């Protein structure tokens, strides 16, 4: 399949919180392991819709997206394949990009 859209609020949780699995049922680690890693390998482009959730803690975003860059051997694939939609929060995409850049090392 070429593209996939992941709507976090609908497909994961409208209340994502926590960094690790031990922090809660909807943590950044869980999102990365169950949604990001399986889909990034199968699709050409991953469009992630960030709207509709109550809010993202920075630790959730860092673990999900920064952690994704750390986990994959070829981190440039992440930057190429992942795109974001955020109409509600204008600063979110920049924040996520900063975590991904920071994780690149």
């Amino acid at each position, binding site marked *: 399949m070429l593209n996939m859209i992941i709507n976090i609020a609908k497909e994961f949780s409208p209340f994502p919180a926590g*960094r690790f699995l*031990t922090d*809660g049922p909807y943590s950044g680690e869980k999102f990365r392991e169950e949604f990001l890693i399986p889909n990034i390998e199968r699709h050409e482009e991953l469009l992630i819709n960030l709207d509709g959730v*109550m*809010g993202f803690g*920075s*630790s959730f975003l860092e673990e999900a997206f920064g952690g994704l860059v750390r986990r994959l051997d070829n981190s440039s694939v992440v930057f190429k394949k992942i795109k974001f939609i955020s109409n509600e929060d*204008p600063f*979110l995409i920049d924040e996520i990009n900063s975590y991904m850049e920071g994780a690149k090392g």
Partner: protein
Amino acid sequence: MPDIWVLINDPENAGFLRLFASATTWILILGGWFVVNSHNNDREKRKELRASLDLLKVDILAITQKAVSFHVNSYYSSYEAMQIVSNIKSINRSINRLHVSDAYKLDIQPQSNKFKQRISLVNFDSSSFCPQVYDSPVVMGIIKSSEDYIDSLETMFSDHLNSFWRRYFKYLLSLLGFYWCYF
């Protein structure tokens, strides 16, 4: 070249001159109305922006207080954590709705992200939570970033007011319109 005084005194041109004088009066009336109306609109927009920024400042200070209280608490509260991220998102949405150009909003983005990171990147999850003291780097970082955030909003307001193009571009356009109508 005919002498201008000969043209003005020629009775055949009287009709044209009356029309010219009356058109000048109307253009001055409409031009004056346009300038006064623009100033009034600007003043009202400035007041609206000032009121929105004052509300944002109150919200930022409230979140700062909530975040400090969260980090110095002796126990971890997932409810408070969720409330804080929700309030931060609400502030960002309010900034998104401000009637200023995107360039000004981009200017405050680094301070906004730093504020959020200071609150919710470290010591924000149950697995890593450790009660802080008031002079800890976590708490001091939150207070500092909140002050920087408020300062960046004030800078945005001041830059917006002093923007040369925003203030004078419409007058330049009206002058061009006047020139186009008249000649």
